[in-house]
């Protein structure tokens, strides 16, 4: 099986339109059953597959995307929009973190954009994407134009700072606290960036990939079943 061909996928799922973005490799998947070293007798241990997310989409994007992106590009500083990804009918703008607040202001205030409603931010941790391990993903809804847009901002693990957009969208207050709590992304300028779900004195940020799920062995009818994160499973 070649590296670029995703295997065992449903026949219909291959995004077959001409718009398919160039994939961006972020990780390498090894083996098949989550077993390392001599424990693996399956012969699948040597399997190597690339993990690739949809990459940058070239213009034209189609639908209302072109107009909105052009409009935003004209309003914000050059290079603020690092990448535009159109995938599965959703528009994602990758924004440089320095320009995030400015971009959000225009998204909210500009007549042609008018994204009034912020659905919050969530974090995603890509430990192998060196230099941009932590991603903050924002979703906005324009009620005026009935559109949705996604902003993605990344920060390196060594400098996990992203400006807060609470001054523009007060709705993001708790969402940013949650993302700080779970991923350790520091939202600069947030009025009170404290933990929200975990106890105040909790060590670590639980939804990072390097944070173990935890759990204990469970004995059932004489057999011992390890917790899910140490269990043998497909990867």
């Amino acid at each position, binding site marked *: 099986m070649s590296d670029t061909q*995703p*295997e*065992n*996928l*449903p*026949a*219909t*799922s*291959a*995004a077959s339109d001409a718009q398919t973005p160039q*994939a961006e490799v*972020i*990780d390498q*998947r090894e083996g098949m059953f989550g077993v390392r070293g001599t424990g693996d007798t399956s012969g699948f241990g040597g399997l190597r*597959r690339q*993990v*690739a*997310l*949809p990459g940058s989409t070239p213009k034209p994007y189609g639908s209302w995307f072109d107009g909105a992106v052009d409009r935003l590009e004209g309003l914000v500083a050059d290079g603020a929009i690092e990448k535009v990804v159109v*995938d*599965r*009918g*959703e528009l*994602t703008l990758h924004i440089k973190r320095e320009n995030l607040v400015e971009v959000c202001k225009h998204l909210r205030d500009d007549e042609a954009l008018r994204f*009034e*409603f*912020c*659905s*919050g931010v*969530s*974090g*995603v941790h890509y430990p192998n994407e060196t230099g941009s391990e932590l991603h903050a*993903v924002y*979703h906005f*809804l324009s*009620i005026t134009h*009935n559109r*949705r847009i*996604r902003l993605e901002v990344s920060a390196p693990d060594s400098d996990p700072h992203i400006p807060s957009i609470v001054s523009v*969208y*007060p*709705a*993001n*207050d*708790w*969402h940013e606290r*949650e993302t700080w709590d779970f991923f350790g992304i520091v939202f600069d300028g947030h009025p009170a960036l404290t*933990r*929200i*779900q*975990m*106890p105040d004195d909790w060590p670590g940020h*639980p*939804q990072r990939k390097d944070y173990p*799920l935890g759990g204990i062995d469970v004995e059932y009818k004489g057999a011992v079943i390890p917790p*899910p*994160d140490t269990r043998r*499973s*497909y*990867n």
Partner: protein
Amino acid sequence: MTATDPYATTRDTTEGKVFTVTGQDWDSVVSGLGEEPEERVVVNMGPQHPSTHGVLRLILELDGENVTEARCGIGYLHTGIEKNMEFRSWTQGVTFCTRMDYLSPFYNEAAYCLAVERLLGIEDQIPDKANVMRVLLMELNRISSHLVCIATGGMEIGALTVMTIGFREREKTLDLFELITGLRMNHAFIRPGGVAQDLPAGALDKIREYITWMNKHLKEYAELCNANPIFKARLQNVGYLDLAGCMALGISGPTVRSTGYALDLRKSQPYCGYETYDFDVPTWDSSDAYGRFRVRLQEMHESLKIVEQCADRLEKMDGQPVMVADKKIGWPAQLAVGADGMGNSLDHIKHIMGESMEALIHHFKLVTEGFRVPAGQAYVALESPRGEMGCHVVSDGGTKPYRVHFRDPSFANLQAMPIMCEGGQVADVIVAVASLDPVMGGVDR
């Protein structure tokens, strides 16, 4: 009276005197305060308090009876559902997310499944019957969720009859859930690709009976409450939040609709075929707790209309598939209810164990490994009883979700608690929080 009560003690801290109040012992606080000149009291209401809708902690700064500052403490019900889902297959994820907002489990499942289906690219292949069943269950769920909101909200202001009749009707709804899915709550019934099982025999008759019952009894809420002077005095002009405030704070659902704006994703961004149903989006123009009550009440009638349309459609869909035709996604088993509960049907077991080696391999692979979902991310939002229920799913092309995040409306809406409560009285805090209808399972996840 509290000198000997070990649970109601007094101690001095650097912040001032701390009293533990367990009920009927306010005398100790009053006498304790008498020694100090200031009227300012900080009250920790909850997290174990019957009026805060679950384990919500309200931190109220009081000046006499007036609330000068209010904050929420949440996280007491955090169970790491999002993290857990990263360690299970795509289908197993439904079992986890259904437990988040335990009063509207079908919305959690549907948001997650719609996002997974968008990633799989099979949104157009979901069988019609599965979509109708999803809509049916979601609308029944909206009724049962609003009933709990109105019932507990009524109980908290002393309207106990509203509570007893609310739970009576909710039981009827849960009986339907049990008949259709096998469980009263935590169903895990909506799965990526469709729903777990076809309608059982006799379900349509029960749905018809239910509609008749509800048409008769839903009126009682209006008769009990709508013009009740005590009810109105407690709810009107309490928990005020106008449209601008809602937009700024990301508030959705009945709270927005009580400001007069008909924001409803079922109309503006329809999913599961909502554009083909005939229903209205009720609004009210008072922006207060009473308006939210009226919106919810009216919404139950609208949901009942949709349930009726679903029943009509399902009548003509006998025998149609409820799971996507793609065998690499659809659960291989034909589920059936046996003497020991729901499980694989005997016909299916006979087929895989006695007739077809390939069918056995297929069953084994799909159940243990699951299916792979092409890499990418998707965000799907739907209109839950509380507002915009969003699900952000990231896949790295594996058999398990890379990251699942839920934008739970209870979580976002609860941010409006301070602005609704500050400046009001303590008793109004209860009404304001109840009108937001937060479910802590969804807030904390």
